[in-house]
């Protein structure tokens, strides 16, 4: 069973030999970037560089997937925001939104551009997916991600205003989120056309550290459902923070699997959702994988498996400065310990 078969079988809930070790979020490493002689700021704007860099995590460490893009601004940019890739930064700085589309409550009445599928970097992403697929697609599953409607809305307008309006003018926000969902459906479908095996929907801004479970159910869930239902392949719903109170609602959104981070008590979630549910997670990609010792990496992987994750998967993007020996330790531990289970 190779990595691709293992991951696809997992999504289909068929029997596999061990839990896979993969991600649906960014996982490129500085080791990979340096090996290719690229610069972090450059790989966001070049399909070939993006695909080649994304393939290195599999090629160098045996990580069981290939994922593009690397940043979180693709959809907002296609919608009309201006992004900053920090072209002159020495170290690693992820692109951010420089200029928002909505500047106040009165400009919230926007619609999806008709040519969204060909705007911004969407064509570049499709090309990167094709290249990545051609390169390592026989060996590993190739994934991509889109934001969730609320998280995208938080990029398109001031998050501060969005949060307050979610409370004061929920109907106005609901309308905007529905437009965001329509845009995300278009993007996800383009990625599927390019050949991705699975799509992760990252609704990071709607964590239960920020919004109440009630607001989550009334306001966040309906547009999220719309996006996830439109994905015809496998889908994963990722939400950051303390998600124990909303894991059932996350499942209701209809993804193939849910992804949770280190603040989720997975043993508890497993009890709640049953043995059949696909729960991916849930180690701290910075404090364990980047700044932890190899021993900490190994013991954390064992804990994830013991708690009952369906796949060992990071709580967020893997931070590129991850030491290579920790990447190796992570994958080795999942293979050996996961194989015994």
């Amino acid at each position, binding site marked *: 069973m190779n990595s691709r078969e293992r991951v696809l079988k997992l999504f289909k809930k068929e029997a596999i030999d061990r839990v896979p070790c993969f991600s649906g979020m960014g996982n490129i490493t500085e080791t990979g970037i340096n090996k290719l002689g690229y610069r972090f700021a450059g790989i966001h704007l070049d399909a070939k560089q993006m695909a080649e860099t994304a393939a290195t995590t599999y090629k160098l460490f045996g990580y069981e997937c290939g994922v593009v893009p690397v940043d979180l601004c693709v959809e907002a940019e296609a919608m009309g925001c201006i992004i900053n890739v920090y072209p002159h930064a020495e170290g690693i700085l992820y692109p951010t939104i420089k200029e928002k589309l909505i500047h106040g409550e009165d400009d919230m009445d926007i619609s999806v551009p008709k040519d969204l599928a060909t705007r911004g970097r969407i064509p570049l992403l499709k090309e990167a997916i094709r290249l990545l697929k051609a390169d390592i697609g026989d060996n590993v599953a190739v994934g991509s991600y889109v934001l969730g409607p609320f998280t995208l809305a938080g990029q398109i307008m001031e998050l*501060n205003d969005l949060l307050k309006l979610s409370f004061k003018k929920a109907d106005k926000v609901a309308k905007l989120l529905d437009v965001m969902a329509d845009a995300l459906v278009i993007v996800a479908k383009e990625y599927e056309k390019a050949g991705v095996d699975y799509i992760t929907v990252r609704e990071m801004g709607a964590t239960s550290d920020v919004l109440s479970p009630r607001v989550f159910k009334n306001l966040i869930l309906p547009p999220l459902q719309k996006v996830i239902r439109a994905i015809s392949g496998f889908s994963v719903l990722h939400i950051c923070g303390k998600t124990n109170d909303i894991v059932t609602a996350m499942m209701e959104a209809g993804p193939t699997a849910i992804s949770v981070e280190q603040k989720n008590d997975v043993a508890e979630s497993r009890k709640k959702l049953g043995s059949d549910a696909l729960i991916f997670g849930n180690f701290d990609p*910075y404090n364990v994988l980047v700044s932890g010792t190899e021993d900490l990496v190994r013991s954390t992987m064992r804990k994830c498996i013991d708690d009952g994750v369906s796949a060992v998967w990071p709580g967020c993007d893997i931070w590129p400065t991850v030491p290579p020996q920790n990447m190796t330790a992570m994958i080795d531990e999942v293979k050996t310990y996961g194989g015994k289970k």
Partner: protein
Amino acid sequence: MADEARKKEIYEKLRTGVIQYDEDACREGAQEAVSEGLDANEAIFDGLVSGMEEVGRLFEAQEYFVPEILMCADALYAGLDILKPHCKQMDLGVKGSVVIGTVEGDVHDIGKNLVKMMFDVAGFTVYDLGRDVPLDKFVDEQLKTDSELVCLSAMMTTSMVGMPKVIEKIKAKNPNCMIMIGGAPTSKELADKWGADGYAEDASNALKEAIKMVAFLKKLRDEKIQKK
């Protein structure tokens, strides 16, 4: 001058105004406090801040979430804007200035703004650099303003990693400056490892930490003066 009962009534109006995110009530309460000659500092602390403390408790109890806190903060500022010009010399045992901002690569400033609010309330001079702030700007601003305190905020793990560089640079130029880091991905362990003097996951902890740090700094200076 208002009597005790009236004073209590006004402070209570300010307090519940904050808790119930009622900007009008806070404005009204603040105006009453001013026109009836109450002590503005007392009105801020026994009214507005007392309300914010309760908001913090409601947040911890998961009755309030971030949208509510933001609305409560708006209400607090509505009262504070009226009371502040009437404040006499703050007597908190501390007096300081602070440089604050969200580090480069991060455009999230909600947490930073809540912390800033606490400094505003405590009478600090606040140099707010905003968000997505290049690392060297923190170093330059600290030198320029000779602030005792620098606060670095980050919400994304991906931007937090710029923090140790700033801490190192500021400490190299000005070892007595206290540095506080904050934001969801930070932790006490990281603060210790990077040489930061304080750490706060949220706004209410940030104020406590900040006051502790400035008091400590004053003590150091007093000791130095005594030795001379």
